[in-house]
Every structure is written in structure tokens, then in C-alpha cells.
């Protein structure tokens, strides 16, 4: 037996295609499938929340207040005043089910709608307002989220995202970091549209209660000042809320379209507010 060696002419053990030619179609397909799945699941969530009426919701989330991760102010004239204000707005907004108001002892300028019929106003928000009308607008905005079932949508969509990214990150966590920007862009634009709808509903509630929509923008003007003071605000497209200036303009436009009176009456002073 002789030895007559020869090298193979080409390497049969590696694929000949360019690595990028395989990479990009796979990447695009992954992103598209992920977005379609998340989008469809989001629509399903939207359908599902219409079947959860407020009574069922308050049963499901009966234990919710115990899970606050902030301190709730003890009952006082202030909480009673806020509860009363919310109840009056509730009538205006045709919401026949009870909503519980709580004040969180926190300097944050914020308010939350939580599952189970809870609205939380942060003391930083209440202290920063001067007029009852302004505060009423913020409360009505949160009530509108309830009426629109936005808090449940948000929760459902959150669950869908967690599940979807768990499937993806089963193969690689780096993939998730690549898909997240695309998803958060979609989530932000969805959230912004829900915020705008809540703003509009709140404006109508304000018109119903006071017969005048003056003071609705008070919070946004306050926030604008805070932002101007140099607090860095994240890129608008990734933000969950529309830009403040846009929100003010949208409110003014809506008031004009619906011929709501603005500034014809002096706003009600707020005795429990900070200023």
C-alpha cells in the first residue's frame, strides 16, 4: 500500500454563503415575528379587559392596597376632600362604581390608577397645585384610565412582554436587548395614545363639574417649569406620556372644538393644596 496524499480542493465542512447574508434575514424575521406576536397578544388583552367589569376587578384585587410600596397618609380632612372631589367627578364621568382615594406621602409629582379601584395622589403633586380645578383635572385623568380600563391593559401587556422575552431570552439574553428598543417604541406610542384619550376625558369631566376648563393645564405648566430647571427628559419617542407642550396644545384645541368655556370663571382655590 503506498501513500499518495492529496489535499481536498475546497473545504466541504463549512457553508459557502456569506455570514451576513444569513444573519440579516434571520434577524429581520425574528423582529417581525416578535412584534406580530406581541401586537396580537396586546389586541387580545384589549379584548379580555372589556370582560373584566369593575366589580370583578375589585374582587380580584381586593388585597391590592396592602401591596403599596409607599406610605399612605392617614385619613384626614385632606383625604376626605380628595375623595369627595373624585366622587363628584365620577358622577360627571358616568362611573357608577366606587373609587378609593389615597394620598401617598412622597415628594414625587405623580398620580396613579391601580387595579381594584384605587387612585393614589402623591403628596408632592397636591402640594404643588394652587387651584382645585387643576387637581380635579389630574384626578379625572386617573379616573379616565379606570373608565378606559387602561390600568388592566397596561398590566396585561406587561405580562405578554415578560412571557415573550422569556421565550426569546431562552436562547440568548443578548437577543432580548436587541428586540427591546423596537418593542418599547411600540409600547410608548400605544401608551401615549391612551394618555391623550385620558386627557380628553378629563377635560370633559372638568367642563361638566365647573362649567369651565380653565386651570386644566396647571399641572403641565408646573411640570414644564421643573423640566426647564434642567432635569434631563428622556427622548420623546420612548416616553410613555406625550410631550407636555403637545398635551397643553391638544387640550386647548379640544376645548376650542367642543366650545368649552375657559377662564370665564375664576378657578376655585384649593385649601388643602400646598400653594
Amino acid at each position: 500500500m503506498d501513500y499518495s496524499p492529496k489535499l481536498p480542493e475546497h473545504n466541504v465542512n463549512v457553508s459557502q454563503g456569506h455570514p451576513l447574508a444569513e444573519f440579516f434575514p434571520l434577524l429581520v424575521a425574528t423582529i417581525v415575528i416578535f412584534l406580530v406576536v406581541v401586537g396580537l397578544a396586546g389586541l387580545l388583552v384589549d379584548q379580555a379587559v372589556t370582560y373584566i367589569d369593575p366589580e370583578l376587578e375589585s374582587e380580584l384585587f381586593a388585597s391590592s392596597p396592602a401591596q403599596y410600596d409607599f406610605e399612605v397618609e392617614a385619613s384626614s380632612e385632606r383625604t376626605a376632600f380628595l375623595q369627595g372631589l373624585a366622587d363628584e367627578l365620577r358622577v360627571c364621568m358616568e362611573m357608577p362604581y366606587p373609587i378609593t382615594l389615597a394620598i401617598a406621602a412622597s415628594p414625587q409629582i405623580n398620580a396613579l390608577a391601580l387595579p381594584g379601584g384605587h387612585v393614589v395622589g402623591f403628596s408632592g403633586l397636591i402640594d404643588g397645585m394652587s387651584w382645585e380645578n387643576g387637581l380635579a383635572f389630574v384626578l379625572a385623568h386617573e379616573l379616565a384610565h379606570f373608565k378606559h380600563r387602561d390600568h388592566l391593559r397596561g398590566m396585561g401587556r406587561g405580562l405578554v412582554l415578560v412571557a415573550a422575552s422569556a421565550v426569546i431570552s431562552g436562547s440568548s439574553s443578548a437577543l432580548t436587548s436587541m428586540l427591546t428598543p423596537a418593542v418599547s417604541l411600540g409600547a410608548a406610542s400605544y401608551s401615549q395614545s391612551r394618555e391623550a384619550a385620558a386627557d380628553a376625558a378629563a377635560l370633559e369631566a372638568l367642563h361638566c363639574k365647573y362649567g369651565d376648563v380653565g386651570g386644566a393645564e396647571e399641572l403641565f405648566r408646573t411640570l414644564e417649569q421643573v423640566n426647564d430647571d434642567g432635569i434631563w427628559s428622556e427622548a420623546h419617542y420612548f416616553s410613555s406620556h406625550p410631550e407636555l407642550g403637545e398635551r397643553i396644545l391638544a387640550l386647548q384645541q379640544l376645548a376650542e372644538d367642543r366650545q368649552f368655556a375657559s377662564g370665564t370663571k375664576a378657578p376655585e382655590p384649593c385649601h388643602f393644596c400646598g400653594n
Partner: protein
Amino acid sequence: MIDLIIFLGLITTGYVVGQTLERRHYRAIEQREAALLALPTTSTKRSFGTVPPGTRSELVQGACCISVDYFKRIAASLRQLFGGRVSSYETLVDRARREAILRLKEGAGDAHQIINLRLVTSSITKGQRGQVGAIEVHAYATALYDH
């Protein structure tokens, strides 16, 4: 956003540097394979020609561990969602195997033939989620020497 920028940076670096190193490695492999071509090598137990009495035989071995780059890792994890041939890992095992055999031959000194060549592969995982960090190939054989 920061995550995405870091990710894009890693994947670009991984691709550019990884591809350059791979091309360089393949060039080296081909040159050395051509140089060592004349050394008879077989995976059978039979030796070439008649082996005179007094021939010395010895176990020779070579090993090589090749790491995956970031681009390949991502390309493979995309491929794992869809199934099919993972072409980004093919070059990895190919390089490791040829390099291990070359090291075995280079370590065999003035052997006149190499018989009963065997190869084993193992993957050295990073631990986390079983993702591959590198693969290792060990080649071993019997080398025959004249004295």
C-alpha cells in the same frame, strides 16, 4: 438605548475582528497542512509498508480550543429559533479539528508515519444557560519512528 449601543458595538467588533482572525487562521492552517502533507497519516490500525523490528512507537497528541465570537453567538442563537444548519459554528469545529491534527503532526517530530488517529470533541460551556464559550478538539494517534 445604552444596552442597544453596547450590543451593536460588541457585535460589530465581534464580526470584524472575528472574521479577520478566522481568515488568518485558515491561511496558516492551509500552509501548514501543505507542508505536512508528506507525512503518512491514517485512522486505521495498519501501518504503511513493512515495519522493521526495533521500530519505536509512541502516543502523540494535539489539542486546540477555539472560542466563539459575539457575532457568531448571536447568529447561532437566531438560527436556534428557526432550526437548521448553524453555519457560524461550522468554521469553529473545522478550525479546531484541523489545528489539533496539525499540532499532533508537528509534535510528532521525525516520525515516519502516524496511524490509528482518533479525535474527540468537547464543548466548554460558559455555564450560564448552556451557551457555548468554546469548543475543544483533542487528537491522538500512534507515531512510528525509525529508531
